[in-house]
């Protein structure tokens, strides 16, 4: 551990800290040996790893509060972690801090069918909420691809999306209230059971704040009635451009599909090899278009979409004939990441957003970069909401390829910003995209973000070195090891 200069973070003694944490949560909830802590060294972006001083696993809100009070007093950095499915190293541990796992706060507190809401602890998985609500004919709408595993606390921290965002919104649109423990260990009750709350919109500022502003210990989400009907259409196209234009045609016709996904040829072939979903292998791009609602609405929109896709020049067009086939078509899409993962030792998943109309231009530019770097790339695109996920194939065992993949990824994000988009649609900034923040934000804007951070956490104890680059307080950050510093 490097020696901090005077006046910055005090040295932390691991054993002394372990004793304090044990007093807060009990010995069985504190991990300190390297082997037990190993599973916590990274999230799903395994390129970035580090070990914390301790892993602490509180079992309830009071224990979280005790831990936060103690860490505030001792000036110990705290990195919160949900299920560890994040893709930006947002929950990578801090080497001089604790890793606070919320996994044991995993209780569904209550489902209120009359109010159409569910109150849950942060460690509950996204899918478990819908599973528990289904007996009332209700569900929780945001559905990230990792929904089997990812936790609702992590969804709140990253304002997660999914394949149904255009119609049903992001996490921020589907929350009612939350309990937050601040960096100082105070408890906040934000939002309410009503739709609007007075004062500043603290729910908005907390959602997507990547663990930099507080620790969420309870969340009340909105539940929606399960749509009685849903149908999916699969359309193949001879070019990316034709598929992109078809998306514009659908939206311009006044239909908001529940899901609208595009995949390029490499992604289609990988998915098809992986789970034989029935995608047209010859296509340069496919569109999966789902409509949901009442039987009548779905029937009317399916007919209209069939007509629109045909007119947009689809080379193949198929409507799923059964619920099983619909599930299979989606399984192909949701399995694209692991399917592409089989094509190379590793893949690097990007998350830029672009205006829909720019998709063919941006994908052509990405194809050019792919040649330049000599790395293959498969593209999946939440076409309904302009969120592009290029998957760069590389070998993490080859340091030259790692360097190229990171540089390729950075260039893609710059392309997205230049096209009028942004550097992250749903994965967040974490550690991974800190260097791209100045591409999207001016110096003054970054300072404003930093001032917001200071309003919540003036000592900068929460997830330091992630999410928002620290500019004017860099003095304190000299106390951090080299890899946590940034300009």
């Amino acid at each position, binding site marked *: 551990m490097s020696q901090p200069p005077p006046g910055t973070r005090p040295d932390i003694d691991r054993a002394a800290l372990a004793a304090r944490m044990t007093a807060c949560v009990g010995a069985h909830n504190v991990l300190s040996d390297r082997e037990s802590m190993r599973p916590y060294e990274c999230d799903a972006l395994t390129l970035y790893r580090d070990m914390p001083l301790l892993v602490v696993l509180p079992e309830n809100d009071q224990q979280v509060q005790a831990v936060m009070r103690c860490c505030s007093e001792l000036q110990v950095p705290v990195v919160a972690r949900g299920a560890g499915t994040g893709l930006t190293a947002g929950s990578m541990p801090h080497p001089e801090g604790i890793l606070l796992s919320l996994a044991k706060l995993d209780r569904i507190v209550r489902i209120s069918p009359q109010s159409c809401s569910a109150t849950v602890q942060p460690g509950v998985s996204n899918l478990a909420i819908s599973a528990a609500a289904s007996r009332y004919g209700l569900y929780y709408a945001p559905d990230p691809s990792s929904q089997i595993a990812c936790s609702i606390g992590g969804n709140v921290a990253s304002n997660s999306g999914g394949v149904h965002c255009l119609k049903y919104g992001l996490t921020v649109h589907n929350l009612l209230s939350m309990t937050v423990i601040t960096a100082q260990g105070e408890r906040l009750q934000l939002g309410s059971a009503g739709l609007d709350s007075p*004062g500043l919109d603290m729910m908005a500022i907390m959602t997507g704040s990547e663990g930099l502003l507080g620790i969420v210990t309870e969340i009340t989400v909105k539940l929606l009635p399960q749509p009685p009907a849903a149908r999916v259409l699969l359309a193949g196209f001879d070019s990316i451009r034709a598929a992109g234009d078809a998306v514009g045609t659908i939206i311009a016709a006044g239909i908001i599909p529940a899901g609208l996904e595009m995949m390029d040829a490499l992604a289609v072939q990988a998915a098809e090899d992986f789970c034989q979903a029935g995608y047209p292998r010859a296509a340069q791009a496919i569109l999966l278009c789902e409509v949901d609602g009442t039987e009548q609405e779905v029937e009317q929109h399916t007919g209209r979409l069939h007509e629109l896709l045909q007119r947009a020049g689809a080379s193949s067009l198929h409507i799923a004939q059964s619920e099983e086939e619909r599930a299979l078509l989606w399984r192909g899409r949701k399995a694209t990441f692991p399917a592409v993962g089989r094509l190379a030792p590793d893949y690097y998943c990007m998350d830029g957003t672009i205006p829909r109309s720019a998709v063919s231009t941006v994908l052509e530019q990405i194809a050019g970069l792919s040649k330049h770097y000599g790395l293959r790339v498969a593209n999946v695109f939440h076409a309904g909401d302009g969120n592009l996920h290029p998957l760069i194939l590389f070998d993490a065992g080859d340091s030259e390829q790692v360097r190229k993949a990171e540089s390729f990824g950075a260039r893609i994000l710059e392309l997205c910003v230049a096209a009028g988009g942004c550097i992250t649609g749903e994965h967040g900034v974490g550690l991974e995209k800190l260097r791209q923040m100045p591409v*999207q934000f001016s110096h003054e804007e970054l300072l404003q973000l930093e001032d917001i951070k200071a309003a919540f956490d003036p000592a900068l104890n929460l997830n330091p070195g992630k999410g928002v680059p620290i500019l004017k307080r860099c003095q304190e950050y000299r106390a951090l090891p080299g890899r946590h510093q940034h300009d």
Partner: protein
Amino acid sequence: MTETPEQDISPTLLQRITEAAARREPLRIHGGDTKRDLLGRPVAGTALDISGHRGIVHYEPAELVVSVRAGTTIDYLLSALREQGQTLACEPPSLGGGATVGGTLACNLSGPARPWGGAMRDAVLGLEMINGKGQRLNFGGTVMKNVAGYDVSRLQAGAMGTLGVITQINLKVMPLPECVQTLAFECTAIDALGMMRERARQALPLNGACWHAGVLQLRLAGAETAVTHTARQLGGQALAESDTLWRDLRELRLPLFTQATPLWRLSLDPAAPLDDALTVSAIDWAGAQRWVATEADFDTVCASAAAAAGHACLFRGGERHAEVRSPLHAPDAAIQQRLKLAFDPERIFNPGRLYGWM
């Protein structure tokens, strides 16, 4: 459409704000000044009129995104959207034509479609603002998803101008529904509340549910086949004029909005039972928004709202120099105060508009 010339007065606004900050001169920000006596506390400050900063900067119907200067009126924006078969899903009021997009966002004022179409805060994709240091800042963008940095654009919704001057807003727009039908049911408030909740739990093309003057009205909107089928299924009286109540509700033109008694807006758990002590004048948002005209004191109304897991706001009339919204818990208020100073260190923007202490 009324004539609204495009006009960019942001350099003037920037200069004005810089001067005010240097002098610590409080500013009362306004657009059409239509909400001066509503929602908030009165502001003592020099008027800063943004209504001259207007015009649609960019509109791409196929992207479902429009960028407008904050002084553009809601009326002007909605008619431009209507020409392309689109609208704002949150159904904001135009309040006689003067309401601006900036003011509507600052107050986060939504219409009857709010539970299904979201609020203004839900439609915001990004914005440009000037903070209290006279810096022009952009947050968010023109795309549906953007999670880089904190959600500063959504934070402006409901902040009532206390954090800065909003100059330009990017909004998500939605297609106009193909078909709209309103059904009326005569019933008591209690029965109406029960029926609203029952219907809200079902997958129906619902986008309005309000009880007023002894009648529950349900509005269906969406694909024609779905609306027609659902209307048959639900029964009730199909109204020939399907928009009358919704327009009067949205535009605050019902008698309850103009009578002399102080008018409270309660934002509650939609399923919370009615409070026998406070007679409700209207129940909107499928139960989540209730209008109460009462002489009851501030603490009584706030306690009633808190019992229903919600908040109260003295919407119109009453003692407006005292606090007009449910109090915040101390740690929450402390952070909100620090957030205010993070944007507006000299406290020049709408001092006291939201809370006396902010």
